[in-house]
């Protein structure tokens, strides 16, 4: 299978980032064991249009061979999708579904401004959902939990990201990875990263170059 989107661009100089670029999210997908509740939340509460559904027979494993895979539109060509595995039960978990292990996996949708974000908050609250508001560094977000206990976030980005943000992110990750290489174990406390990063910031400034250049 060719990985080239446009054969006419197959010169060596074109076989770089330009033909490997992504065009945003098509879908994220998670399993559900609450079909009606999930459709109600995303279609009726969120107001998202059901845009596609797959019904498959015998594609899954032996204990649940059939499934539904259904999609809701979430703007700019993106969708959110769910698998409903017929005849299956949610597997037993070693931690509960409100554990951070699961709540850290979430979908965040973009809106263009704060007014729209607050309108979403009001809409969700009008259906009786508890909505949390958090102002982060570059995002202001609202959070709601869907009937599956999946975290849903809606955000507006308060400023565009620039070169400084990319430099800083690269140095942060470099500091953390350096510590893990030096100690041969996962980094334990954020203070260690902050201290290691101060040295990288000085080195970066002295070199006068982007860290990933």
């Amino acid at each position, binding site marked *: 299978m060719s990985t080239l989107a446009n054969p006419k661009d197959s010169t060596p100089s074109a076989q770089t980032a330009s033909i490997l670029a992504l065009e945003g999210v098509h879908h994220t997908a998670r399993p559900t064991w609450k079909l009606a509740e999930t459709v109600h939340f995303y279609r009726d509460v969120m107001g998202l249009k059901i845009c596609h559904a797959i019904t498959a027979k015998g594609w899954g494993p032996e204990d649940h061979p059939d499934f539904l895979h259904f999609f809701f539109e979430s703007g700019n060509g993106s969708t959110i999708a769910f698998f409903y595995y017929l005849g299956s039960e949610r597997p037993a978990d070693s931690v509960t579904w409100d554990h951070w292990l699961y709540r850290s996996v979430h979908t965040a949708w973009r809106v263009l401004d704060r007014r729209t974000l607050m309108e979403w908050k009001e809409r969700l609250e009008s259906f009786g959902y508890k909505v949390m508001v*958090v102002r982060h560094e570059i995002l202001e977000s609202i959070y709601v939990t869907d009937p599956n206990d999946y975290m849903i976030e809606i955000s507006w980005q308060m*400023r565009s990201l*620039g070169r400084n943000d990319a430099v800083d992110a690269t140095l942060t990750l470099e500091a953390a990875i350096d510590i893990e290489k030096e100690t041969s174990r996962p980094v334990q406390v954020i203070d260690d990263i902050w*201290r290691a*990063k*101060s040295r990288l*910031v000085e080195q970066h*400034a002295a070199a006068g170059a982007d860290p990933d250049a």
Partner: protein
Amino acid sequence: MPKVYVLKVPEFAGLIESARNKPGCTIRSVGESYLCIQSDRPIKFLRREMGIGPAVWYGAFTGGIEGRLVDFGREEVTLVDA
């Protein structure tokens, strides 16, 4: 001598502004992307003085530090020599 490196982005500007009024603090540029707050004594930061919300507060030192953070709480922290 404790130091705080501050990325030049709007959400962290409050660190710089609060440090300008602190005795013993000096501020210098570090390359194009950072400023450094340096002090000849422990530096106490107050969240409300910096004008930032809790989420940004918890990441306020992401630019890097030299020294040791003591008594890190929801509203204040002190950076001392390591």
